[in-house]
């Protein structure tokens, strides 16, 4: 039975190991778990780790990533790696998410160094996806997160995005 809690340090350790092995260029935590860094806590059932692939082929190096994580002792369940009982999804970046990884903030969790998306990039990514839950996320972030508004506006403009109207 895995220990309760979100194993973020183990997730960062796995991502750091992938980077050290040269399988990925860099990574950052995104998605809901990253959003919680800036908002009130809310339920989420997995961690999204965005990575810049070292292998720019169609598979984005996913087979090598899975093989490496398996060697580290992690298991798999469909598209997720299970790290100490918690599902983790590895997502290859595209233009906006690659920028978000490159400009991510360093963070230390339980003594392990990691990287996490800026609030402004999380909002821009939510605007680019545009599902109902993304719109709710944007509203929550705008209300609760301390934002660098000029930076957010610049990201939105650079990627031809706009915030949903209330």
């Amino acid at each position, binding site marked *: 039975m895995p220990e*309760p*809690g*979100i194993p*973020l340090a183990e997730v960062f350790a796995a991502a750091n190991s992938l980077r050290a092995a040269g399988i990925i260029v860099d990574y950052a935590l995104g998605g809901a*778990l990253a959003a*919680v*860094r*800036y*908002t*009130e*806590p*809310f*339920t*989420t*059932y997995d961690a999204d780790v965005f990575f810049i692939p070292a292998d720019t082929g169609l598979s984005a190096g996913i087979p090598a990533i899975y093989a490496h994580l398996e060697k580290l002792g992690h298991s798999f369940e469909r598209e997720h790696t299970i790290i100490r009982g918690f599902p983790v999804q590895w997502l290859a970046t595209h233009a906006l998410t690659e920028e978000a990884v490159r400009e991510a903030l360093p*963070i230390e*969790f*339980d003594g392990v160094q990691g990287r996490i998306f800026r609030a402004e990039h999380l909002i821009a990514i939510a605007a680019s996806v545009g599902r109902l839950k993304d719109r709710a996320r944007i509203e929550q972030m705008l*209300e*609760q*997160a301390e934002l660098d508004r000029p930076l957010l506006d610049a990201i939105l403009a650079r990627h031809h995005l706009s915030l949903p109207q209330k």
Partner: protein
Amino acid sequence: MTAEMRKKLAALPYAEKLRRVAELIAFSRRFRTADASRPLVTLQAGTGDYVKIRDQLFTGETVDSLFEQAKAVE
């Protein structure tokens, strides 16, 4: 919860917020388990002798004959 209270929660340290997320996950999993068990809870024991009724209904029938009857109904 007021917007002010939400902002206070948003200002908590990340580790504390993740601890609360874990609690929320555990709570919602328990809730989902309870939800899934609801049909079992509402299931009522019937009356009568099922074996006797089964014998009355299906005596002399085979899978094939029941299949043919079902096809005829279609």
